[in-house]
């Protein structure tokens, strides 16, 4: 799944022959319908608009399922549009503001509080989705995910994928410096730093190979990477009263740990990654970095960049390093199928049916989008195809044990503030406590003015 976000980048449909023609035709035909006032269409025919984010595996699969649904239900027409991962949330916000929001869309789970706070998404009827009771539903999904999809006992999102980040190791590099990728996989921070240092190769002040690399180019990645360190160090984003607490002792400790890879162990080059084209995995794929924290990486992605690594399979994901002797925590996030609260009743009903159909074939989903696991616990992990995927246990463990990103209506402001703080610390050597104080103050200001 393509996680590369840069702030405010715009993107859209990837032209791939047939699908583009479809998209254009659908957009043309249904464009007017999407914008026009609802509930005035013909009785039997339902026109839906559905938006999602671009990802080389996930988006085509969703599109395929939607098309299959339309074949089975010829009276339903779905206009399928997609945007970059970074842009989807903004496009939807603007869509709501301008009355052009889609009837249904995929919501990144950290944005759920934003839609919920403004009453923009409708509560789902879980029975229409195939669950008999709320308990049945909640038993079937990880706790972390539920916290985002549900509120006050109502379900607002039907989960699709949900995954945790892992530490991807280049096993060839490990071997080359005399480390065993299994025994020496760094599961504690101290070891993490040392292993990274060992793996680093420098020529003068130029890094030929970084032992470990943080992605520095976009706020979303900064959040994803800092989140597990913060929580693992015993800190939290907000306290019970809603005040931002990244500048408390635990937060400072977390930032120090984050900075240590570059500053103490000399294994990372923060300035180098920020100024180039942002595809954070690229350095790891091109073997300019030996370790990298990433979502589950699909084999085709590795194949497209590094055929040797793909064919010889000299990589493996392991869990994050733990702090103070505790097991490592990964960061998790996922995606919900949601329904626009302003869509008329018959569209909402049709969307329930569509969503149920989309998620009804977990095996097909795995076939197309592995190794991105879906959030659902039941009915698919025992499948031999799933079990035979390399290191599937690690991937599922990351999903089940991870912590979710902070859920707050001022997520964007929070991400920007943390991103700036990390830049200051890593690039300008700023004092960590002072920088975090500033960032926390910024977030508190944004929270206070959430209506502004």
């Amino acid at each position, binding site marked *: 799944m*393509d996680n*590369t*976000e*840069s702030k*405010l*980048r*715009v*993107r*859209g*449909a*990837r*032209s791939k022959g047939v699908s*583009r023609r479809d*998209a*254009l035709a659908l*957009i043309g035909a249904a464009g007017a319908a999407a914008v026009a006032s609802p509930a005035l269409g013909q009785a039997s025919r339902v026109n839906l608009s559905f938006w999602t984010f671009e990802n*080389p595996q996930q988006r085509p699969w969703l599109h395929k399922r939607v098309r299959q649904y339309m074949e089975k239900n010829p009276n339903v027409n779905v206009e399928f*549009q997609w*945007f*970059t991962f970074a842009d989807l949330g903004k*496009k939807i916000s*603007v*869509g709501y503001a*301008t009355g*052009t929001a889609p009837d249904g869309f995929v919501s990144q789970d950290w944005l759920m509080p934003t839609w919920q706070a403004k009453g923009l998404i409708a509560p789902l009827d879980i029975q229409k989705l195939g669950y008999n009771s709320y308990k049945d539903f909640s038993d079937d999904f990880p706790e972390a995910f539920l916290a985002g999809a549900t509120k006050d006992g109502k379900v607002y999102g039907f989960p699709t994928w949900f995954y945790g980040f892992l530490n991807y190791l280049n096993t060839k590099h490990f071997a080359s410096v005399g480390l065993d990728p299994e025994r020496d996989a760094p599961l504690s921070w101290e070891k993490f730093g040392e292993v990274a240092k060992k793996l680093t190769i420098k020529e003068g002040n130029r890094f030929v190979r970084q032992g470990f690399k943080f992605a520095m180019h976009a706020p979303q990645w900064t959040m994803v990477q800092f989140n597990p360190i913060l929580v693992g160090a015993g800190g939290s984003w907000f306290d019970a009263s809603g005040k931002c607490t990244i500048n408390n002792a635990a937060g400072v400790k977390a930032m120090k740990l984050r900075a240590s890879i570059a500053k103490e162990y000399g294994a990372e080059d923060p300035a180098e990654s920020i100024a*180039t*084209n*942002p*595809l954070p995995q690229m350095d790891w794929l*091109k073997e300019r970095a030996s370790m990298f924290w990433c979502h589950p990486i699909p084999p085709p*992605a590795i194949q*497209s*960049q590094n055929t040797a690594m793909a064919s010889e399979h000299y990589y493996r994901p392991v869990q994050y390093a733990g702090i103070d002797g505790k097991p490592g925590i990964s960061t998790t996030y996922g995606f919900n199928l949601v329904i626009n609260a302003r869509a008329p009743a018959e569209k909402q009903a049709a969307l329930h049916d569509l969503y149920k159909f989309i998620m009804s074939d977990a095996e097909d989903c795995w076939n197309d989008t592995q190794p991105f696991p879906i959030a659902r616990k039941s009915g698919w992990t025992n499948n031999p195809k799933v079990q035979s995927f390399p290191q599937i246990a690690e991937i599922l463990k990351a999903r089940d044990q991870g912590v979710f990103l902070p859920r707050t209506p001022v997520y964007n402001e929070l991400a920007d503030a943390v991103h700036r703080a990390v830049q200051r610390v890593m690039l300008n050597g700023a004092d960590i406590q002072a920088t975090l104080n500033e960032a926390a103050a910024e977030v508190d200001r944004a929270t206070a003015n959430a209506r502004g």
Partner: protein
Amino acid sequence: MTTIPSDEVAASRWQLTGWKRTLGLVLLLAFTIAFIIPILWMLTMSFQAGDKMFQLGTEWIPSVWHPENYPNALSRAAFPNYFLNSGVVSLVVMAGNLVFCTLAGYGLAKFRFPGDSIVLLLILSTLMLPLEVTLVPTFLIIHNFGWMNTYQGLVGPLLIDAFGVFLMRQSMLSIPNDYIEAARIDGAGEIRILLQIILPQCIPALAVLAIISFRDSWDQFLWPLTVVSSDTYRTFPLGLVQFGEDYGNPPSEQLAIAVLATIPVFLLFLVFQRSINRGFGLSGLK
């Protein structure tokens, strides 16, 4: 301002002699090459593999050519469509500027009417109201017109630029009024006067306005970013920015697109170069 010097006088005045001349030539040449290095670099890198970009040295003549960067780059996203959109928008904006700025410039240069100095001030003061300042309300206006994701929406706010009015007015001020008066007394209509007497004398200024308005519209990023969310109407700067976000798009392909994007403006300039030079007032430079 009195006379414009003849070429001979000017040349003899400024001409450096002997070693100073050679030195001047060498320095100027060296500086020029240094100045245009980024373009040369862009050109040569667009034909090389992406990995070559941050090596210890730069190969100015590629040892391995990768012309496939160009068709590859174009296929990464709907770039031919993006270029088409940019082209349509830029041509329409250029045409709009040529028409309306000329009209307004003429009206302000050669006509006296109550409030004309206020009108001039009003128009010129919009130079302080660029899109970057009026972004949010302009967006709301375009949305209210229903012009989101349309050509009209893309073109709308760019159609007339006060700078063009200023340009045309300045150039028309120096047209002698006798021609106009004579034509009026002969009974020629105002439109005819404009088309047959004024315009032919403004060709250089028109050329300058054309290239500048085309280029500014071709460059536009913030406005299309705001008003377009559908791939059908995306312009190439948006496409170029999103370029690096997929798996495996080497930066050299991004440069290939950049090269392709540079060509139309260069061509337009080179085709109208003589008029443009005159329009800028550079015909005295040999």
